[in-house]
């Protein structure tokens, strides 16, 4: 029997053939903590008696979740991260650099074939560039910072084959939401997901990140794709590291292989308070909204802002709606400025906030009021997620969010594109 991408990546690291179900201790090629998880990791590192990080060149810390800090308590934890990074020679991406999951690939830290851990559940994102990358807690990050290694249970793989081409007005976010709806919040628990098929090939690398990002919303440990020409071109422009892409064997053994034909897919919307509570936009059009959010690690990249700007160009955000836009990185912001995207968004009435996580996790930048409805490009709509348990969050693509911001109610973007 052949090997899955996951089994091959672990086999390459261990120097022997490794199969799903095995417990292994492996070198970790790259690791990351953000401002919600690094302080606890630093604390655990000290408790472990850690003096020096094993290899500072394989670690970064990112201040993105509450950046710039809205509270003194948070400011002090940020200061703790800065002190640790300086002392250990670890690179710190400070306020304004952007969201960890946009930065790590963009800055060339992650390459195909890597094993990556991040103290953030959406670390599955880098699966889109053929890395086995998974979210861990702070103590696991501390252990890996200290030893360079971590234990893993090599997961079985669920292969999702996505057939057809996406219709106009339908984007990778709609695919991610559709899959979460079909597979449910624990449909891939403990499994690696491999995504394949023409839909994936047809998407840009940026768009693919959105899908791998949301693998964890189905419980997956990783969300892997093969590296094709697009991937290699994208990576080569960004990294000096050498790498070898990993493809699954044709006779790889999967837990299950599921095929979906997406030629007829509509824009999708996740309804409160579950990511897997997904309906086609036609069924929810007309629900009034008061806040719209474009950004986050799911959908804050350049092409996300571009599609929103295309919809908003020459139109106005509804007076009933606050549209908050958070570019996912400084580089995204600069490119969006150069291309006139920021100009179009701001002219239409968008409120631009610092590159980072924006209002996604309820710390700052747009906490909704009681009874309000928000439509967001984020990946989670749990009750209270944005800082108010009495608000409702809907999730959709940047196009759907932009169209809804114009109309003041949930709107099918295909009529405005």
């Amino acid at each position: 029997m052949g090997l899955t991408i996951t089994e091959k990546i672990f086999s390459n690291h261990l120097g022997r053939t490794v199969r799903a179900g095995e417990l292994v201790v492996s070198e970790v090629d790259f690791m990351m903590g953000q401002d919600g998880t690094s302080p606890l990791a630093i604390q655990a590192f000290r408790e472990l008696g850690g003096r020096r990080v094993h290899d500072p060149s394989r670690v970064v810390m990112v201040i993105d979740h509450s950046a710039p800090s809205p509270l003194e308590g948070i400011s002090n934890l940020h200061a703790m991260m800065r002190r640790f990074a300086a002392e250990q020679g670890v690179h710190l991406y400070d306020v304004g650099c952007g969201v960890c999951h946009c930065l790590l690939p963009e800055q060339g830290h992650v390459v195909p074939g890597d094993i990556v851990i991040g103290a953030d559940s959406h670390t599955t994102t880098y699966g889109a560039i053929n890395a086995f990358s998974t979210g861990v807690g702070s103590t696991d990050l501390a252990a890996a910072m200290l030893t360079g290694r971590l234990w893993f249970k090599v997961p079985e793989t669920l292969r999702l084959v996505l057939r057809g081409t996406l219709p106009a007005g339908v984007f990778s976010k709609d695919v991610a939401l559709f899959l979460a709806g079909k597979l449910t919040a624990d449909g891939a628990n403990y499994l690696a997901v491999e995504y394949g098929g023409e839909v994936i090939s047809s998407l840009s690398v940026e768009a693919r990140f959105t899908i791998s990002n949301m693998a964890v919303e189905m419980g997956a440990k990783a969300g892997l794709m093969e590296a094709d020409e697009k991937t290699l071109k994208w990576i080569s422009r960004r990294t000096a590291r050498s790498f070898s892409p990993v493809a699954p064997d044709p006779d790889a053994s999967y837990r299950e292989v599921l095929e979906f034909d997406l030629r007829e897919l509509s824009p999708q919307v996740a309804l409160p308070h579950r990511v897997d509570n997904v309906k086609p936009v036609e069924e929810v059009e007309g629900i009034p909204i008061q806040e719209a959010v474009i950004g986050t690690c799911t959908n804050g990249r350049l092409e996300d802002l571009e599609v929103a700007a295309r919809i908003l160009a020459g139109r106005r955000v509804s007076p009933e709606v606050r549209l908050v836009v958070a570019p996912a990185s400084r580089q995204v912001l600069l490119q969006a400025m150069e291309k006139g995207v920021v100009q179009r968004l701001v002219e239409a009435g968008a409120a631009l906030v610092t590159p980072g996580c924006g209002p996604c996790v309820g710390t700052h930048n747009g906490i909704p009021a009681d009874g309000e409805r928000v439509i967001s490009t984020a990946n989670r709509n749990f009750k209270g997620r944005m800082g108010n348990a009495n608000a409702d969050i809907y999730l959709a693509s940047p196009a759907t969010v932009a169209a809804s911001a114009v109309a003041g109610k949930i709107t099918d973007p295909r009529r405005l594109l």
Partner: protein
Amino acid sequence: MAEEMILRGKAHVYGDDINTDYIISGKYKFKTLDMDELARHCMEDIDPEFAARVQPGDFIVAGENFGCGSSREQAPLVIKHAGVAAVLAKSFARIFFRNAINKGLPVVECDTSGIRQGDVLEVDLGAGKVTNLTRNAVVEIIPLPAVMMDILKEGGLTSYLKKHGGFRL
């Protein structure tokens, strides 16, 4: 934590897919590393009375996929600091499960469907069974992988690594 440890307490019962935002909201968790302070907000968005009601040694009991969502280690930590002795669920989301073990919070995978709010339970981790003293029923615990049992026995990953100097599989 000893292998023969027997825990006894009352059940606080929840449904499926209890996510880490419900366990400790993002609006609190970024502020401080003071887990006793954060524990006052444990389960707040779905059960505002929980923090006041919970007694040391009680259990959180849930359905499928407990702890889904973020990787925040604050989630098992606030549960522990709220005085909860163990979480029992039909299944757990993987990052929470691993974090709980790393922090020395017992996570017990078992059939929880017969447990009702306020039932008094006896959890015998060594023998691998949960006895519902209120309803006179016994369910078996799905055993942990050996490496996780070893970490839990040491009270968490920090003390495990300090003792062994690395991972032993």
